[in-house]
């Protein structure tokens, strides 16, 4: 994957420049910045400054902002926080450092990111919640809900695998193509097994059972 600036249509650029005029750094990240997103995917933007830009409410760090042409998922962080181990060790910092496209600023912090044990633990807890959900509800879900939650589980296990290997987590479309093309599937399934989850069965077994029940129904 290479970093490529998205096509910056006028309104996107105008909104970003106006909304984030006081920010020192503006970074596009996520699938849109790599042109791997769907047309309706959010544009993920990290902004760095002393105060959060106006769409972000006081005490908050993130907001979804919608215009009639596009949606932004805007994340704000302060300049002082950029130097903290909490930020430098986070999943988001690792991802932005590796895959982000800087629209403003230099991102001198990006060479200092390193996946922290806290980030791994946080992802592991998310995976455990998703596994618990599968155990409790998968057998009774209608197919679209089952597909959705199995996919979310599989992606989070892939992300955990990256973090455990000290690697930045790539964008979601890449995780999906990695799974489709069987890249590192054994390693991903081993991570799932270590958490008591048979991922291939969750992905294929449950779905096959459900689809077969659908056909019978």
């Amino acid at each position, binding site marked *: 994957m290479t970093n490529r600036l998205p096509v910056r249509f006028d309104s996107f650029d105008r909104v970003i420049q106006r909304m984030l005029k006081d920010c020192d750094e503006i970074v596009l990240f996520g699938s849109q910045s790599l042109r791997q997103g769907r047309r309706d995917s959010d544009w993920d933007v990290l902004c760095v400054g002393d105060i959060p830009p106006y769409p972000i409410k006081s005490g908050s*760090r993130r907001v979804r902002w919608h215009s009639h042409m596009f949606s932004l998922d805007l994340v704000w962080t302060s300049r002082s926080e950029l130097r903290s181990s909490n930020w430098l060790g986070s999943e988001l910092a690792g991802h932005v450092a590796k895959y982000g496209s800087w629209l403003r600023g230099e991102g001198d912090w990006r060479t200092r990111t390193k996946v922290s044990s806290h980030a791994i633990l946080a992802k592991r807890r998310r995976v455990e919640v998703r596994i618990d959900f599968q155990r*409790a*509800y998968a057998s*009774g879900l209608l197919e679209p*809900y089952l597909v959705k939650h199995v996919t979310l589980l599989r992606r989070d296990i892939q992300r955990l695998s990256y973090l455990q290997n000290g690697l930045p987590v790539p964008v979601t479309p890449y995780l999906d193509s990695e799974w489709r093309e069987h890249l590192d599937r054994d390693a991903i399934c081993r991570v799932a097994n270590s958490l008591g989850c048979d991922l291939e069965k969750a992905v294929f077994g449950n779905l096959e059972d459900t689809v077969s029940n*659908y056909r019978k129904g």
Partner: protein
Amino acid sequence: MSESARAKIKKVVDELGGEIESGEDALRVFGRLDALASAILSYTSPKAKKITRATPLPEVLRRVAKTQGSAQGKLLKRAARKAKTLLAIAEEVSYGELDPEDVSRAEEARSELCDDLYAWIEGCADDK
């Protein structure tokens, strides 16, 4: 609606409990609201097995409300609003935003959502 269908939906409603105080709690809420949407669709929509999209709970409740009598429909519409509030707060919390006010608003929305759904399930027993 059959007694077993009502019991199955009620069981999922029973499990909606628990405060949203962390990102993991928010994830549990997302999952359980989807489980509830799936259960309600399964037992109220004759075309449930043909659906192709994991429709969010508020939309499911609004859709099912249109098929119900006035009183039952009102309960579901109100439940849809509460589910929307709960989802919005869970989304904020899943981003790592933990505002104590939101925690109590979420608890209020969850509790009212459950009350409305229990009342609706009760009402379904009378719809023979």
